[in-house]
């Protein structure tokens, strides 16, 4: 029993000024879901690979005369397998249960949360909303990761409920691996930037695109309080929540702005560092090149752009792994996930104007307080893309 991984209790999750207050049973629900997801990843999922190798592949070959040769064929082969069906169905259910658990917790106290957000946001120029910004079709087509209302739905003017729901349940999907404020990604970015800083790259203006609740940029702002940061998103509720959240954590150097990153109104070369964190896969094949084009235009000479994602599929990735990594495309309302990971990101950045000789990729894992929270870097469970350990595309100008 001593070497079993146990996620920390939900009590350890950090409470900022707009964080929903969970009662005993609400915390217990999140504790259960975190352990359930851990079980699915470590105990059930390996059997999916065994089912593929031991029977599904052979059944497919019997029916078609050949083994599955494309990702799509692996999918059709596995969708007929009972073990895969059970794993998928339960995994989908845990996502839906997490949403219901988060929403019931948030909505019973929504007027209090909205008032707290309003008190923090009122009259502050660091929150710039623009009602003329339209929600792009790739955000409105489906509710991303099965979050009812996605990132943009307002139940009333001034509402932040979708932001609060997103924030309070991140613990569940990652089993606490995103750390106290679900900010392990941001902490990893801050650690990366500190290294860069020591090596002489010292950005004065930073842009974060697709910031949602700001959890990936706040640690950067905390580590570099003299750096001016702009964080953009299309969703007003997440921006209101993000600003209130950041402010309550003592951060005053981020301007949260409602804008579509396909066309921003900043001048050429306005930023020294541009970051997207698990964002590009939530766009579309037409929007992504426009956004990359904007990053090139907005980046100053000598600047860097960072895209935190999962690795592209590529010919060197086994078909079964591609298929498993593609699960969210069809089953967790991430419809651009598969198409985005089929893209050659280096080529996309080259088309956007970047020099291939100045591109690289690095691995980043969530940085957390390891005395309490589990480290993704030390976790050897293969969960095909859920774990907060990322593939980062870096391009310099």
């Amino acid at each position: 029993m001593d070497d079993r991984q146990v996620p920390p209790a939900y009590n350890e999750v950090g409470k900022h000024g707009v964080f929903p207050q969970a009662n005993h049973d609400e915390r217990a629900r999140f504790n259960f879901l975190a352990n359930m997801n851990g079980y699915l990843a470590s105990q059930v999922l390996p059997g999916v690979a065994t089912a593929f190798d031991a029977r599904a592949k052979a059944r497919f070959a019997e029916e078609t005369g050949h083994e599955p040769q494309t990702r799509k064929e692996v999918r059709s082969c596995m969708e007929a397998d009972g073990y895969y069906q059970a794993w998928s169905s339960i995994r989908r259910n845990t996502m839906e249960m997490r949403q219901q658990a988060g929403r019931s917790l948030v909505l019973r106290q929504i007027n209090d949360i909205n008032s707290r957000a309003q008190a923090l946001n009122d009259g502050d120029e660091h929150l710039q909303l623009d009602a003329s910004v339209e929600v792009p079709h790739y955000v409105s087509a489906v509710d991303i990761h099965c979050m009812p209302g996605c990132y943009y739905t307002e139940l009333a003017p001034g509402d932040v409920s979708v932001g609060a729901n997103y924030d309070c349940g991140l613990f569940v999907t990652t089993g606490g691996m995103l750390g106290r404020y679900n900010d392990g990604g941001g902490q990893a970015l801050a650690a990366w930037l500190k290294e860069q800083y020591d090596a002489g790259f010292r950005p004065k203006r930073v842009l974060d695109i697709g910031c949602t609740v700001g959890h990936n940029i706040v640690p950067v702002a905390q580590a570099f309080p003299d750096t001016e940061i702009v964080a953009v998103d299309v969703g007003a509720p997440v921006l209101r929540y993000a600003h209130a959240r950041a402010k309550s954590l003592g951060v005053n150097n981020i301007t949260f702005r409602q804008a579509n990153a396909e066309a921003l109104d900043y001048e050429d070369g306005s930023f020294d560092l541009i970051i997207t964190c698990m964002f590009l896969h939530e766009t579309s094949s037409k929007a992504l090149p426009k956004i990359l084009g904007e990053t090139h235009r907005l980046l100053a000479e000598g600047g860097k752009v960072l895209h935190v994602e999962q690795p592209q599929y590529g010919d060197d990735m086994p078909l079964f792994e591609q298929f498993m990594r593609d699960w969210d495309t069809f089953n967790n309302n991430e419809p651009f996930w598969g198409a985005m990971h089929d893209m050659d990101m280096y080529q996309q950045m080259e088309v956007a104007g970047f020099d291939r000789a100045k591109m690289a990729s690095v691995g980043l894992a969530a940085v957390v307080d390891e005395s309490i929270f589990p480290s993704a870097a030390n976790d050897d469970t293969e969960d095909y893309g859920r774990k907060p350990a990322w593939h980062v595309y870096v391009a310099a100008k």
Partner: protein
Amino acid sequence: MSEAAMKLDIDPIAEAGKKAKGKRPQFFELEESERLMGILMAVVEELAVTRERLDTVERLLEASGGLDRKAIEDFHPDAEQARERGLMHQEYIARVMRILQQEREALEEAKQKGPEKTLEQVSEHLGNS
């Protein structure tokens, strides 16, 4: 930036379970299986919740000899207690998920040694030997 937050009058029980936009995939051949799994998983979750609550009550009773609801709400396990509770979840999950765990064992066994005989086959064999 100034805007008034409008007071919301909503039913959190009904609203919490709102369907996400996007057609729900069907994983099993039968819709009935989908429904059963959904209901079952929610029951599984709520039993876990009840057990965690009970665990809290027991720990508090043990410590104080009395029961105070506020004490339950405010209860915060220390690192060791949290670990014990996580292990409790894992044991419970292993019990509930037995059918899949055993299916995986059978898959691996069949991969090593070929498919197991059915009870019809064994019964016929024993009837004839």
